[in-house]
């Protein structure tokens, strides 16, 4: 499979979860493990350009696919706009849900460059944040949308 543009080949147990492959085998610890039941969303990564919850995806299912994690968000010209906007709007506190929020926000803006507040809240509703009350996360996504529209 290709993770953040880099090819990896491994022999794995059939039951190995994608989140554990990324974290324990590939050392990509930006993807977090929070609940085991697809509820909290801390483990969101992209698989073939679609956000998935990697705690309920078998690593074997990612075979031959492209996976993008938070470590692959920063580009050759610096941080992605959503990363910059999260910092500017104080959209993170403990940082545990942040990678999932960033990846989901990036996906949202790629498909809807000018989302309303309701659309943002709906898009992020699969990820739990215990720190921010979501307020500044929503502001950050709108800030990113506006920044990208202006640039």
């Amino acid at each position, binding site marked *: 499979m290709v993770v953040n543009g880099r090819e990896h080949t491994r022999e794995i147990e059939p*039951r*190995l979860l994608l989140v*554990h492959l990324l*974290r*324990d085998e590939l050392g*990509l*610890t*930006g*993807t*977090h*493990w*929070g*609940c*085991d*039941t697809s*509820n*909290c969303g*801390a483990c969101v990564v992209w698989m073939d350009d679609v956000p998935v919850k990697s705690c309920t995806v078998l690593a074997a299912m990612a075979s031959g696919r492209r996976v993008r994690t*938070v*470590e692959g*968000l*920063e580009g050759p*010209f*610096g*941080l992605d706009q959503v*990363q*910059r906007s*999260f*910092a*500017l*709007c*104080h959209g*993170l*506190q*403990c*940082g*545990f*849900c*942040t*990678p999932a929020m960033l990846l989901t926000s990036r996906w949202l803006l790629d498909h809807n460059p000018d989302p309303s*507040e309701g659309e943002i*809240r*709906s898009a992020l*509703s*699969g*990820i*739990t*944040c*215990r*720190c*921010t*009350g*979501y*307020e*500044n*996360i*929503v*502001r950050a996504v*709108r*800030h990113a949308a506006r920044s990208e529209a202006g640039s």
Partner: protein
Amino acid sequence: MSAPPAPVRGNQCPDPDFRARPAGAESSTPMGHGSMLRKEDARFLRGRGRFVDDIQLPGMLHAAVLRSPYAHARIVSVDTSAAESHPLVRAVITGEMLADRGLAWMPTLSHDVQAVLATDKVRYQGQEVAFVVAENRYAARDALALIDVEYEPLTPVVDAQQALAPDAPLVRDEIDGRTDNHIFDWEAGDAAATDAVFAAAAHVSACDLLYPRVHPAPLETCGIVASSDAVSGKLTVYATAQAPHAHRAMYASIAGIPEQKIQIIAPDIGGGFGNKVGMYPAYLCAVVASVITGAPVKWTEDRSENLMTTSFARDYHMRGEIAATADGTILGLRVRVLADHGAFNGTAQPSKFPAGFFHTFTGSYDIPAAHCRVTGVYTNKAPGGVAYACSFRITEASYLVERMVDVLAHDLGLDPAAVRMGNLLRPEQFPYVCATGWEYDSGDYARALELALEMAGYDELRREQVAQRQAYEETGRGTVMGVGISFFTEAVGAGPRKMMDVFGFGMADGADLRVHPSGSAVLAVSCMSQGQGHETTFAQLVAEELGISPDDVEVVQGDTDRTPFGLGTYGSRSTPVSGAATVVVARKVRERARIVAAAMLEVAPADLEWTKGRFDVRGVPGVGVTIGEIARAAHSDLELPEGVEGHLDASCVYNPPNLTFPFGAYICVVDVDPGTGQVKVRRFVAVDDCGVRINPMIVEGQIHGGLADGIGMALMELIAFDGDGNHLGASFMDYLLPTAVECPSWELGTTVTPSPHHPIGAKGVGESATVGSPAAVVNAVLDAIGVRHADMPLTPAQVWRAVQGRPMRTDLAVSDGW
């Protein structure tokens, strides 16, 4: 890799939609207090945070815990032979093995003991029975299934209200002479005087209130990596520890390891909310396993383990009575509490107060007579408690008084805003000593409530409510709206050593500050961020006092080998205690800098005057030295006066003279569908006064998070039990947390009433919104449906039943024929 975004100072956010803040809240200064962006964000945004489960050590083994399926059962036998022969298993630890080392039981923070691994019987579902160490985490889990435990099930004590019944099964039969499940009785206030006030009062309202068991549920669960070096005897522990120094002291006391040989490192913590204050049995098992195997051992809790076994919160069964005149002047408040502490009394709180700070229950009002009696009981439920951002039970106290004020207003047919306004403490009453003995430091309560009412448009909301109710009654369709108010007073920053200790340690915090020759600085503090942004806020505190850039101040925390002793971060105590220590130590350094500057300029120290960042000779314009120049000189060959040491550093221990008392006025507006019981939080106005704000952006973020907690507790979060003691909230499919969809856009307001005894007038804010918001939401929902009281959580089912006149007891899965 490119540089992180440049810091933006003075503005909370460049977003033009970012709400304008009231004057005074935006105190931007180039080097010190103000809304600077967070230093810690650079790593979190890149996925480069370092949480406990991210840590990989060479040769590290992985552990898993075998837990009891029963709430109450005698252990007949434990057979680990099959697990031990699993090819990847390196060790299996049982209670019997720990007993041989004197480690089967450990002390709790409340003068009780707790089983590390069960030996005689299990006392709650999920209790630790065996600990398996294997070469990877999957193998450790596999081996759990190979352990054969024979249990003899016993009748559990599930209903706290039956725990003291004469025929109740005994939870703690291992304690000699124990014949019941009673833990303690504790009271505050003057019972006789209060009873006399009640006997003479024109009106008394009474109400039974349950604050059900909930869980802090930080997104990162608890975990540990224990690494014991057999040669040096050093134990290195990476742990999710809100209180690293307290953890070190406990390991030393329990395991007998010399304290200087223990290093606790709390790396990044993914939220704590009180869940990561205490020590858990698996931590001790991991240490023992590392000693036995000679390898580092990692244990990471899964979500079910987190929700089922680690520190719960609340579980207070309260009967409140409020006495008043016919026009709503409150005369007295009386409370009886039954506190469910679970199978072991493991609450983390100042040890002289078994009910925490519940005796702040007179809240924000001038109530001349008050008395509370709290009875703690054992049940077959998980131990721990006083977690979830509650400021040691002030959440329960605040909910009690704010619900009782609404019940009083309901019974007397008065407006709840007017009743509050009429009874709030007045500014001239501060410092105010309440009926249970707390001395409130400062406050201007009416101003905060007036601001909240004005921001909410209270009168207009009431008119809209009447119209909407009328439309609903005419058509039988649509929603009804409700407006709920809560006014809270917090008591944070524990605390004065003479009154408060945890595990025998007084609650004073140290701070060390070292200024390098270049003028940059390193601050070491004992508190530990779990997302609060200490690396930024504490750097700003030093920057403000020394006049250097916050970017030039490195903050060290969460490592017992590198930080001074102190009791950690919980109870909103970082800013009031460690923050005060930081200011005091920075001022000490500044006074040392004055002496060095005097030597440099060859004048008397008294002839120098400080302006931010430099000392100038008074009355001689342009003659002075900067803090950077002073730092360089302090490390140079400059001749210093007799008895003055070189270099530029200092340390201090701050013993707070009193707690600080933040407060706030919250107004929640909800729309309720009486047909389905569905609640939609339309608006939430929160006016907070936490004294001087160091970084207003971070303060507001803390408030936002607490408000979401309030929505969660009021509307959805619950740990209930069935008749067999089965835990009914053991995953996020059952334990519901608010998402972005359930939360409104918070509307914040600010007033600033400095604390008179904190060095910069700050009060602490971490838990304010969690304490204050649940009552506002509950009051709003009950206001909407016109019901006097129904217990949390106000799920659609509970709201619907309340509308039908039969709200249920939420803590037990019992059938009452519906």
